[in-house]
């Protein structure tokens, strides 16, 4: 495909403040079974979600295990092929890029993984781990590469003599710093952080969170920050999207989300998180949701939350609520948004 064939977002839909625009993104994973391993169904990991990531912001994505957070992050980076929909990076359709252009675009979008243990090759030293993207993209080699790597190590709070060490010689927090340094190597605009602090101890979490905040200011980065911990998300994000069973159910700035959640699921989620202060916690009213999250292979009809929602009415079982702006850029997908 030639450069001209790359699809651009139509002028009227282009948001000049957005770095990434996700439009009707879907990702279904086939389920195979039976005698000849036929496809017998689909896991609707993400089912028709749309949102923008603004330049320089941190967009948080929360939700319970299996709701599709990781899938969303990976589909945006085109690390997996989406089933339907589009992702526009600075107005360009990421899914229509050819191999060469995709490689160029990849320099602008990086990923940091959850597991600081599994995501670093144990047989490569730190210098090579961080320097690898520089070589692959032909930016620097040899002494020049080493110099950049040393600078990167210092940027993330490690020392330059760590270069010759191997991942197993580092603690979890330090490994996550290495992962961040690797992501920074290509000077990207967007970094997708998939649960970057979930595997870390509390006292180490704050180190990494502060580091990420500093780097954002210093390098003018945009973050898509994926986590299941609402306290962390609330702290670091400018805006927060709440996902439930492959759907985006609420999207707004983090203060309004906490102060006045409009989706019943968000309300329950917020109330479920204990606040580390016994005086406050003992006075809080906890909304306990009945049952488990239904299977994404066979999601409930209508609003996917209706099986556990205490406000549900008949219409909730029939019609899928659209994600709509209920004022002040507060988006919610609910037939009866809370007020």
């Amino acid at each position, binding site marked *: 495909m030639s450069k001209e064939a790359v699809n651009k977002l139509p002028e009227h839909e282009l948001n000049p403040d957005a770095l990434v625009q996700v439009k009707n993104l879907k990702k279904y994973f086939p389920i195979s079974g039976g005698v000849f391993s036929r496809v017998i169904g689909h896991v609707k990991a993400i089912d028709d979600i749309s949102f923008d990531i603004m330049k320089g912001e941190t967009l948080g994505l929360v939700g319970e*295990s299996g709701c599709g957070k990781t899938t969303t992050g990976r589909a945006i980076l085109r690390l997996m092929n989406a089933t339907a929909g589009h992702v526009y990076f600075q107005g360009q359709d990421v899914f229509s890029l050819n191999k060469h252009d995709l490689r160029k675009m990849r320099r602008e979008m990086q990923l940091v993984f959850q597991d600081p243990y599994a995501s670093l090759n144990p047989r490569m030293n730190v210098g090579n781990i961080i320097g690898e993207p520089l070589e692959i993209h032909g930016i620097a080699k040899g002494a020049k590469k080493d110099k950049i790597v040393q600078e990167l190590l210092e940027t993330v709070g490690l020392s330059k003599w760590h270069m010759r060490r191997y991942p197993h010689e580092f*603690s979890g927090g330090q490994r996550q710093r290495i992962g961040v340094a690797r992501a920074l190597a290509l000077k990207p605009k967007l970094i997708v952080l998939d649960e970057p602090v979930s595997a870390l101890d*509390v*006292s180490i979490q704050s180190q990494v969170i*502060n580091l990420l905040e500093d780097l954002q200011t210093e390098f003018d980065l945009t973050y898509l920050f994926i986590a299941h911990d609402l306290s962390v998300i609330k702290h670091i994000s400018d805006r927060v999207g709440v996902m439930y069973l492959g759907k985006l159910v609420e999207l707004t700035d983090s203060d309004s989300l906490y102060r006045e959640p409009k989706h019943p699921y968000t309300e329950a989620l917020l109330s479920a*998180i204990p*606040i580390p202060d016994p005086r406050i916690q003992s006075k809080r009213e906890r909304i306990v949701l009945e049952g488990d999250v239904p299977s994404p292979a066979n999601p409930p009809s209508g609003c996917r939350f209706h099986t556990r929602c205490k406000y549900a009415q008949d219409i909730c079982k029939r019609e899928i609520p659209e994600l709509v702006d209920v004022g002040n850029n507060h988006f919610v997908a609910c037939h009866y948004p809370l007020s």
Partner: protein
Amino acid sequence: MTEKLLEVKDLHTHFYTSDGEVPAVNGISFHLNKGETLAIVGESGCGKSVTSLSVMRLIPDPPGRIVDGQIFFEGEDLLKKSDSAMRKIRGNDISMIFQEPMTSLNPVFTVGDQIAEAVELHQGVSEEKAHKIAVEMLTLVGIPMPEQRAKEYPHQLSGGMRQRVMIAMALSCHPKLLIADEPTTALDVTIQAQILELMKKLRDETGTAIMLITHDLGVVADMAERVIVMYLGKIVEEAPVDDLFHKPLHPYTQGLLNSIPRMDRGKERLHVIEGSVPHPANMPTGCAFNPRCPHVREICLERMPELIKKEDGHTVRCWLYTEEGQASKAVSKEVSS
């Protein structure tokens, strides 16, 4: 005066590994009153699980061994009991639930059988009666269609349901002490909420004492009456829950409380405890927290402080609260990360 149910005195549990002898639990003493909920918090590897497994006498040997100390349960030293006497206590007077609901149930037996097994063993009832009790327990922990579920295998249940089954199993013989080692860490927040509510309800109904192990200070604030903070195999602070959160004394506790992002707070920059936990095989000399502490004094580098009583029920292991420590010179240092 409330009655002591459990009293641990100067417990030392060591592991003999290729890294050398690891003092995973290094001289801890605490007690638990009847019906009380005590939380033990601390970073990964500080010895929380080893403490609880020591109380159950379930330390895998090799590589581990309880090398010293006493564990009094209702006045009798568990460490002096014979294996068979200990087995009569496990699952009966003291029971335990574990962090990993996905792997803590045996995949080849039905959940009903697994609950009934303990009931049959400890209560000496018939198999049929034990199964009936198992179903009642499943009802109690809020599992829908308990008769049906009792006949199912663990893989047919979700994580939250498996943890309920574990709770049902643990409570089936009406234990006096329930040890819950990170009972909700592996669960989603909405499921965690269900389990915590369930544990509170059952605690209030049965009067079981709970030793709750967690690293989540939110869960502590929600459940506990008293809190023990551990660092590298030692207790560094012990306090009633309100004091711990509002008048923390140990620099580590203070740092920890300030470093967690809180939903009810704004975006102020998080406080940071520099550095990371050293490996227990190469413990620093003096106070174990000294490489990370912002208030180090010379004496901190030399000697380990004792646990000192500051107020009723509030103790702390830190030189700052002693005259000797106050007299010692402050060390200015580059905190290394």
